[in-house]
């Protein structure tokens, strides 16, 4: 990643937190009260930055280092903002404590009858509930998304709290910025105006509970390369009714007329329904995103795929033969789960620099000490891992144990919750 792209997110973070803190920096206030005010504005700045990270524009995402990185920052800054905003009322109460415990309580008490304090509590409780829902991984994506949006409500209430305190300029600017970013996200991503219209032309089963879908553009196609991913939503067809939610899918191939092929595994309600997709179903495609296999270096490569994690690699191999010695280790539970197995065998026959290793691992963890090349053979390799989070963790650890530096291990999570 270029230096500019690496620095983009930390620089924006500094701006979003630094400007409000500098503007509102208290002058000659008691210590804890000043701390409370700084915590409040730092949390507010972090929340605005966090909202900006929800915007999914192709160029913006690329200049900030990719959607995967943006999502990781979204998670971390959201949690940091929450912690600062929890401490904000406690620091204000600490300032009152110097006078008396009674005053400490009155400053933050929701029973005080002060509208600004009520709004502060309202915002904080929305954040609390929204975050609690965020951590409930068992919720269906649709329910999770609605509960997650409580966080947006919490942010807006929080800024009305600032306005109610009489801080008109800062409060209005923060509120207007938050509303604009939320509207931007709603229109461009959730309502799909940034996505392009496509139509399903074929659906092929490639493994148990996994289909490969071909999509033809109905207008301008997305400018993608295989291995990147697109956010795709499916709607109605002759007898199919899609759930209309945008989910990330890796591009497993691109045709001459910009037809996209994507691999869809049944991992949730919506993707399970997609297994019965049929030609003629309308779709919208937003993207492309992802930097995973873009700009491959000219040194030897090690690719490790687990299950559906094979899709970026097959996409890349279908496009062109590998230019440098490449070892592809493909792990799957059983033959019925192994998508593209025959095609991979055929591709490796015609690609002398590609060494293919396939292995059915069953339900247990793979025997990586046997499967991975030893430290000597891995020297100078660039490693790419795609698969379930558990496998990525195992393989990364095994590679580091073999002396591969962390900068040379690349992976993609697909965890956008």
């Amino acid at each position, binding site marked *: 990643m270029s230096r500019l792209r690496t620095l983009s997110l930390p620089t924006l973070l500094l701006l979003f937190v630094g400007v409000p803190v500098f503007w509102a920096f208290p002058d*000659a206030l*008691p210590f804890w009260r000043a701390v409370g005010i700084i915590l409040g504005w730092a949390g507010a700045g972090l929340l605005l930055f966090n909202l900006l990270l929800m915007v999914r524009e192709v160029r913006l995402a690329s200049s900030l280092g990719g959607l995967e990185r943006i999502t990781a920052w979204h998670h971390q800054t959201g*949690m940091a903002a929450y912690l600062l905003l929890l401490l904000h009322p406690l620091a204000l109460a600490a300032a009152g404590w110097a*006078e*008396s415990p009674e*005053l400490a309580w009155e400053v933050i008490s929701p029973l005080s009858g*002060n509208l600004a304090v009520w709004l502060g509590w309202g915002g904080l409780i929305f954040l609390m509930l929204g975050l609690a829902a965020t951590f409930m991984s068992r919720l269906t994506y649709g329910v999770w998304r609605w509960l997650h949006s409580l966080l947006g409500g919490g942010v807006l209430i929080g800024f009305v709290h600032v306005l109610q305190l009489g801080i008109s300029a800062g409060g209005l600017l923060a509120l207007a910025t938050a509303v604009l970013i939320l509207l931007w996200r709603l229109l461009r991503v959730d309502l799909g105006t940034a996505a392009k219209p496509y139509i399903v032309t074929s659906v092929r089963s490639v493994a148990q509970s996994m289909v490969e879908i071909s999509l033809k553009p109905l207008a301008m196609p997305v400018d993608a390369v295989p291995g990147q991913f697109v956010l795709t939503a499916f709607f109605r067809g002759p007898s199919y009714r899609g759930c209309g939610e945008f989910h990330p899918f890796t591009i497993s191939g691109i045709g001459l007329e910009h037809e996209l092929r994507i691999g869809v595994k049944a991992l949730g309600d919506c993707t399970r329904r997609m297994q019965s997709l049929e030609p003629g179903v309308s779709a919208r495609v937003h993207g492309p995103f992802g930097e995973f296999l873009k700009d491959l270096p000219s040194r030897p490569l090690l690719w490790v795929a687990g299950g559906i994690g094979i899709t970026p690699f097959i996409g890349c191999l279908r496009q062109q033969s590998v230019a440098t010695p490449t070892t592809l280790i493909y792990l799957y539970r059983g033959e019925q789960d192994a998508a593209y197995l025959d095609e991979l065998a055929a591709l490796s026959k015609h690609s002398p620099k590609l060494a293919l290793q396939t292995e059915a691992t069953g339900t247990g963890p793979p025997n990586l000490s046997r499967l991975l090349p030893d430290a000597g053979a891995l020297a100078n390799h660039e490693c790419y891992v795609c698969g379930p989070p558990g496998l990525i963790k195992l393989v990364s650890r095994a590679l580091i144990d073999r002396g591969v530096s962390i900068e040379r291990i690349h992976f993609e999570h697909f965890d956008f919750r």
Partner: protein
Amino acid sequence: MTRTLYMVSTTLFWLVVFGLGMTAVLWSPVEQGDAQAQGKTITLVELAKHAAPGNCWMAIRGSVYDLSGYLPGHPSPPDIVLPWCGKEATEAYDTKTKGRPHSPYADELLAKYRIGTLAKAP
């Protein structure tokens, strides 16, 4: 990791808030004298007699406050606050620097210094 951080921080937060609430309930510093003083009616003439730094009363939103003990701790420079001693100072209180009113914290703090009600003009 993040989930654990969320659960620990949220639990600690509620424990502190609950602890503060309980301390406030159990804390009973209200003195008899104060309670009686709250009912006292003070005229503008009487208010005007307390216009010195060491003897400073102000009328704000219909109540009279004896701020003599608090003034040394007030964040603003003395020349901003002192001219309001002995006077009706609601507007000054509601429009401090950058046109902002005082915070709920200041309102709570102010209540501690209340000594009576401002008499209505004849």
